[in-house]
């Protein structure tokens, strides 16, 4: 499959001080939905805006659909659909007028009616942008990106701040675009979004890729399959205790998280009986025990020691 987006060793230093992106390389295939997952300030927006040709990198190379921004910017602009992290579209234009305006910039745009329908904005077609809800505004932002009939869609935090229903609507729109052969690059700090929507993703922290792969692969490799969390009376959280839990059968890694001990385990049915026995032997009592599937959140915590939200 041909490469849609490629960048090598991207760096961006703002004002000679803030190193927002520090040597980042990506390769995204045509037809893929690729996610950049990372906490606020990780450098996602900086990275995506460099790829979009809106920001010059301090160093590094970018190739989109085999073209570069230096030589083929006009052509690339026709091929890309972009939604920025925050754009406040003109409040006193109607939804249809806004879509028509953006359509007028492209040499072969799609019909506004089709896009309105596809984004479920038909009812609001004649309403002013200022009267839209958050979810409708976000759909309109994506509509302005889709109306140019792009080959590649860039979405920077498309669902931040939206209610669950609006988020799912947007996911459906992204999937439909992808099904029609489009390539998607999106950023998010929601792990569930990355997990459900993206074929592959790169986890970004402090301007670097700290892990890359399919969501499942990342979880299996780095999150452990299952997570067992418990709290036992009289247990101090020191290193010696952690080593003790690490020695239980089937445990891949151990960490402390907010007063709980978290075990990444491959086979809970082997670990849990052994855990119960060990707790009893040490003369303490279980106060809390849960098991759950590992998630990308666990991957991130494992890699950085921080949660995505609080990072």
């Amino acid at each position: 499959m041909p490469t849609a987006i490629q960048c090598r060793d991207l760096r961006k230093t703002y004002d000679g001080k803030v190193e927002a992106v520090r040597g980042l390389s990506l390769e995204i295939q045509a037809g893929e939905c690729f996610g950049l997952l990372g906490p606020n300030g990780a450098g996602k927006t900086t990275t995506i805006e460099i790829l979009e040709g809106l920001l010059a990198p301090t160093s590094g190379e970018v190739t989109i659909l085999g073209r570069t921004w230096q030589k083929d910017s006009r052509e690339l602009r026709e091929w890309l659909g972009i939604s920025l992290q925050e754009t406040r579209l003109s409040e006193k234009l109607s939804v249809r007028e806004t879509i028509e305006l953006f359509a007028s910039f492209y040499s072969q745009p799609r019909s506004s009616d089709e896009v309105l329908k596809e984004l479920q904005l038909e009812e609001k077609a004649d309403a002013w942008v200022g009267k839209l809800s958050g979810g409708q505004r976000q759909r309109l932002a994506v509509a302005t990106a889709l109306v140019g009939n792009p080959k590649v869609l860039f979405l920077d935090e498309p669902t931040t701040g939206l209610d669950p229903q609006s988020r799912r609507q947007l996911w459906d729109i992204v999937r439909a675009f992808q099904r029609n052969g489009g390539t998607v690059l999106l950023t998010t700090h929601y792990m569930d979004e990355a997990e459900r929507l993206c074929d592959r993703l790169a986890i970004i922290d402090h301007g670097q890729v700290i892990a890359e792969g399919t969501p499942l692969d990342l979880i299996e490799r780095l999150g452990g399959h299952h997570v067992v969390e418990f709290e036992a009376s009289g247990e101090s959280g020191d290193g010696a205790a952690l080593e003790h839990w690490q020695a239980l059968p089937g445990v891949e890694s151990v960490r402390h998280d907010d007063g709980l001990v978290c075990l990444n385990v491959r086979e809970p049915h082997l670990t849990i009986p052994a855990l119960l026995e060990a707790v009893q032997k040490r003369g303490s009592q279980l106060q809390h025990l849960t098991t759950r599937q590992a998630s990308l959140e666990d991957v991130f915590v494992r890699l950085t020691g921080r949660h995505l939200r609080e990072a």
Partner: protein
Amino acid sequence: MSVAQQMPVNERGTPLRAVRRNGRWAGYRHLLASRMKEMKREPEVIFWVFGFPLLLALGLGIAFRNKPADVSSIAVVGSEAQSVIGLLEHSPRKASIKADVLDEAAALKGFRVGKYDLVIESDGKGGFKYVYDPARPESVLSRAEVDHALQAAAGRQDALSTVTVVSSEPGSRYIDFLIPGLIGMNVMNAAMWGIGFAIVDMRQRKLLKRFVATPMRRSDFLLALASSRLVLMTVEVGMLLGFGALVFKMQILGSIPTILLIGASGALGFAGLGLLTASRSQKIESVSGLINLVMMPMWIFSGVFFSYERFPAVIQPFIKALPLTALNDALRATILEGATLGAQSGRLLVLALWGGISFVLAVKWFRWT
């Protein structure tokens, strides 16, 4: 039902069917139309661009309307006030003098606040005392007028016979001076705000960045903004001229196309300046300050409300180099004196230089993000 199910699904890998094909100017046309719609839907804009200048013209036109200049308001005080009134009643000029009888305190208060031009007191021996202010032209006039009336009523004969001709032709009144100045000021205000404010607002909203993320031609964007100024300028100029002609019977001697061409040069010149002030600002507050700073000297020096000839001769060259001075002078010359476009080439050159140099610098420094 999900969105995905409603979509026509194409074969994987083929782009969606393009439904239309846009011409070269589609972007420009839509940008211009959007700009006009947005302005039309903004009540404040309508007021500042159209309502405010009209109110200003109306207010100033009435306040400074040429009242019959020879009506003097005077206050008469003292025990023999009635005899003064009696003398004035018999004067041939009684129509031009309006006299009130008051006590001294009220009369002096009225005089201080400008209600009376003159206070007269009889000294009881057939003589009069005038209280007047030599720094107030109407007070000086009033004294001469009343003195003349009293002396004539008392029997003085004129030594010379004179005839006066009344001249209050449209064209030489304050309102005639004012309207072209207001047009100039309005063209400046509207262009500076309409360009400077609009651009920084769009930059702050990240809309400029969103636009340059599309294939939009940046020159189309600037051209559309400039065009919207020209359309508005035509309406503004037409409105103020029409207002002057209808309400104040102002006579427009120059040709309308010439006046509009001068207005257009002004609008474009100030649009260039507006673009320059907006070329880098990220915040509305900073560009607002900058725009006011640029316009302030012109409000004062460029002869909007009064003639700049009153300023010292040394600063006259500086005043004449200001774009608003050039615009106001050119407008007055055409509107009031019927001057041709060719006769205004020097002033148009001043406007073109300001606009052109600002534009080049603005484009050089401009930040889209």
